């Protein structure tokens, strides 16, 4: 008698337990995440046949959240890519973190993708003409770094080219000045100042002549 009651009770408990696992309420997952560093418009993300436009934040660089409209089911694979990066920017997985834009829905309780965008950077530089002594040092303001230009080897007359090691971001200003003149010479800088467009600057040309005695 006792055992005949226990068995149906067990069967009921099992059935209830199984129903809890599946049934009509399918688990659904929103493909969502955050992007840091967006400054310019143009971001379009894409995955599973959906495109999502992500507008830039009110304050440039603030973190923005995104969520694709259609939910995924358990086991669906998502692979979120930039169909279009914000203008003048490049985006990807933040440095020193593990990429999480490509995974299977349901492997983690929640999808939380992280991306970071940075403004494109370009180099600045030019040619140096007439340099016959050592000691020329050029600077790009206080934070753009310095570059020393050595005199060309004997017999070399072609203007030498130089470039700053530090890059300049799009829309950032630059201004190249002579920090240290070469021994016995005076150098002047042409096209010294500007605002970075979307290309390397190679016309910041330096001309050196003998210092007036």
């Amino acid at each position: 008698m006792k055992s005949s009651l226990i068995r149906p009770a067990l069967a009921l408990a099992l059935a209830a337990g199984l129903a809890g696992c599946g049934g009509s309420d399918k688990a659904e997952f929103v493909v969502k995440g955050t992007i840091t560093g967006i400054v310019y418009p143009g971001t379009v993300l894409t995955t599973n046949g959906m495109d999502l436009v992500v507008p830039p934040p009110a304050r440039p660089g603030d973190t923005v959240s995104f969520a694709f409209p259609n939910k995924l089911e358990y086991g669906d694979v998502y692979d979120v890519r930039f169909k279009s990066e914000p203008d003048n920017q490049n985006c990807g997985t933040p440095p020193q973190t593990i990429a999480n834009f490509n995974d299977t829905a349901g492997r983690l309780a929640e999808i939380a993708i992280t991306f970071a965008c940075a403004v494109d950077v370009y180099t600045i530089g030019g040619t140096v003409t007439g340099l016959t002594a050592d000691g020329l040092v050029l600077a790009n303001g206080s934070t753009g770094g310095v570059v020393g230009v050595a005199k060309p080897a004997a017999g070399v007359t072609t203007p030498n080219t130089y470039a700053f090691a530090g890059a300049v971001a799009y829309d950032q200003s630059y201004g190249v000045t002579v920090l240290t003149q070469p021994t016995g010479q005076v150098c002047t800088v042409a096209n010294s100042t500007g605002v970075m467009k979307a290309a390397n600057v190679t016309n910041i040309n330096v001309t050196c002549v003998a210092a007036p005695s």
Partner: protein
Amino acid sequence: MKSSYLRAGAALACAVALSACGGSDGQLELGGTFQGVTKAGLVVTSSGQEKAITPPADGSGQGRWAFNNLISTDDRYNVELKSKPSNVKDCTIENPSGRAGYHVYTVYITCELNRHGLSGTVSNLKGNLVLVNGSDRVTVAAGATEFKMTDIAEDSPYGVTVLEQPAGQTCTVSNGSGTVGPAAITNVAVTCTP
């Protein structure tokens, strides 16, 4: 006979394996990142080790550092500041102490640089003038007789140039370039044509 060789062999293998784990020469790196270091002089210590952190050549003042000698698993460490560069207010060390479980990459050193003003005079300005010191951009309004750029870090270079000339005028900068010392720069002079 056979089993006695085996035993001796096993004992030897155990001894070798154990010695590989401990000993005075560790196998774990102790270090982290630094920023605000534009001049030599930063020295940190931990358990008798000393490390002088040299400023990076690119002028960024930041990078990664680590003690030259490795430490061992379970070693306690306590990174302390021994000396700082002459051009900083102070340096702080985040996560300075702990016990090594794996490589320690999380000792973050942040130095706050002394900052000084960069300013000068303007004469005969009749329109708007835009001056830059590298990435720092300042608009000087018509009629102004002086200007001020963003403060700059001690020992860094500066170079003030004209980005946009006022309408109908040409302005030139004198004393526009140099290296800031322990005091503010106030002698940059901008002169505009009549």
